[in-house]
């Protein structure tokens, strides 16, 4: 459905995207993850035909985006990261305008527009100017505008960026609903937990290059071999006591809390050492947590190249 082959893009001396390739299958939610400035938005802009790549090609449903941008874009809906509806037009007029740009018959626009606004909780506000909507509502309106053409593929650039928890949850549940309806979705985000929650497959992009790709579970297994042990002692301990642990593991100490990051197979050994310290210093353990790394930790490790 979507294919990027060796995309390159530079802005002056800055190489924003360096050889990005991936493909997305029908009905899949594909996440492009990366820190700010990693090249996610530039990649999406190239795939949707807004930017011409210096090298490489992009295809939407087999159509070369740069040879036939109108043909390719007629199959997609896009919610760009930095975008707004026309604030001086009503919610309904924004929808109708986009419908007309897809040359959708008037009756279909009316029928589909009504359905979408009801689904997205905006029907009661259809006559309101978009400038009177909250940020979350505007984002939902943009989603409705992207869906008015009933596209096979949806590009969502940072769909929940800057939204409050409730609006973000609503958008996420809509994305899940779209997947159930068979839509193919490409989303970019720097919200790692969101990607872990929503995406069937993710690619992690950093400094313009894809550095890891797979399902969130794949990445957890491949890169998530570390665990975090947090111990709360009844008294603060001298940091030098922990030197014997520091030689082998990543250890931080914050008064009574000691945090040790080690590989899963070292757990037994580390717990022994902690018990040794406890007995030697006559301390009591008041709390103990052992956690696998979160998807966010794994992402950070991948991006840092650890």
């Amino acid at each position, binding site marked *: 459905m979507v294919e990027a082959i060796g995309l390159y893009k530079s802005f002056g001396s800055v190489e924003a995207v360096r050889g990005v390739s991936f493909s997305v299958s029908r009905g899949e939610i594909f996440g492009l993850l990366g820190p700010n400035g990693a090249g996610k938005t530039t990649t999406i802009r190239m795939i949707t035909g807004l930017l011409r790549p210096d090298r490489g090609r992009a295809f939407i449903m087999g159509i070369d985006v740069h040879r036939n941008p109108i043909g390719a874009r007629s199959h997609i809906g896009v919610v760009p990261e930095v975008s707004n509806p*026309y604030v001086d*037009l009503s919610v309904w007029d924004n929808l109708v305008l986009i419908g007309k740009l897809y040359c959708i018959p008037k009756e279909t626009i009316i029928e589909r527009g009504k359905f979408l606004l009801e689904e997205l909780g905006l029907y009661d506000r259809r006559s309101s100017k978009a400038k009177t909507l909250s940020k979350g509502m505007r984002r939902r309106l943009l989603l409705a505008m992207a869906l008015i053409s009933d596209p096979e593929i949806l590009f969502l650039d940072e769909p929940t960026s800057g939204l409050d928890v409730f609006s973000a949850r609503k958008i996420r549940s809509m994305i899940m609903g779209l997947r159930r309806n068979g839509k193919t979705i490409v989303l970019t985000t720097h919200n790692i937990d969101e990607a872990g929650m929503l995406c069937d497959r993710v690619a992690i992009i950093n400094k313009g290059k894809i550095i890891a790709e797979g399902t969130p579970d794949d990445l957890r297994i491949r890169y998530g071999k570390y665990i975090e042990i947090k111990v709360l002692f009844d008294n603060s301990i001298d940091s030098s006591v922990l030197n014997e642990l520091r030689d082998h593991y990543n250890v931080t100490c914050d008064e009574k809390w000691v945090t040790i990051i080690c590989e899963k197979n070292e757990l037994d050994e580390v717990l022994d050492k902690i018990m040794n310290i406890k007995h030697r210093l006559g301390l009591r353990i008041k709390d103990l947590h052992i956690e696998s790394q979160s998807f966010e930790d794994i992402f950070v490790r991948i991006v840092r190249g650890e």
Partner: protein
Amino acid sequence: MVACISDYLKKIWALSIKDMRLYYFKGPTIVMGVFMPMFLWLAFMIGSSPSIGSAVAMLLSISSFFAASSITPVILPWETRQKTLEMILARPITIELVLMGTCLASMLYGVFISLVIIAIGIFLGVCPANIPVLIASILLSSICYSFMGLLFSAIPSDVPADAVLLSSVVRMPLIFISGVFVPINRLPILMRPLSYVSPLTYYADIINDLYIGRSAFSLGIDFLVLLLFTIILGIFTIETNRRTIIKRL
């Protein structure tokens, strides 16, 4: 092929309707498109006593010029600032269609203002010698001026005032060298060559011919040169904006 052209025209019209609704009543459009030519005209009228025919011809010449070139400089910077440009460009349209929609809205604004002035003239008993020629000249010149206005918006700024300022710097001198207030043959000899490179000269010449029977060129030359200006400005404007529009995203 026919379906394709029909789709393009529908998209241009949809974009144009959007521009009409959003920009016809914006402050810069009304100030630069309606008030500015009116005050310039009034300033010239005070102290001079031209015939009603001359007065209507002058007002019509500068009003068409200012009105048709007042919206195009504003739209792209405004949409960049409002963050709607990328949203609209991500649809199945091209940059050229967006520019065409903008030009159409601007052209129709110029035509509308011109028709109002023609109607006022008729109400005052001043009729043009040939209405179809007048309408043709208004349509052609409005397209030409809207392209000219769009050229000013090629600076990739998100401040509409920047484009308006630039357009004013160019448009103001054109008023005085194009035979609107002072006939070309009464201009200083050194300024005359400049008047020949202003599209307003040829439109004002047609209007003067139709309202007061005074012209520097034949109607054929006026239309031909105006058409050449329109084609050259159109190509240059679209190409320049195509290069800079991506910098706005």
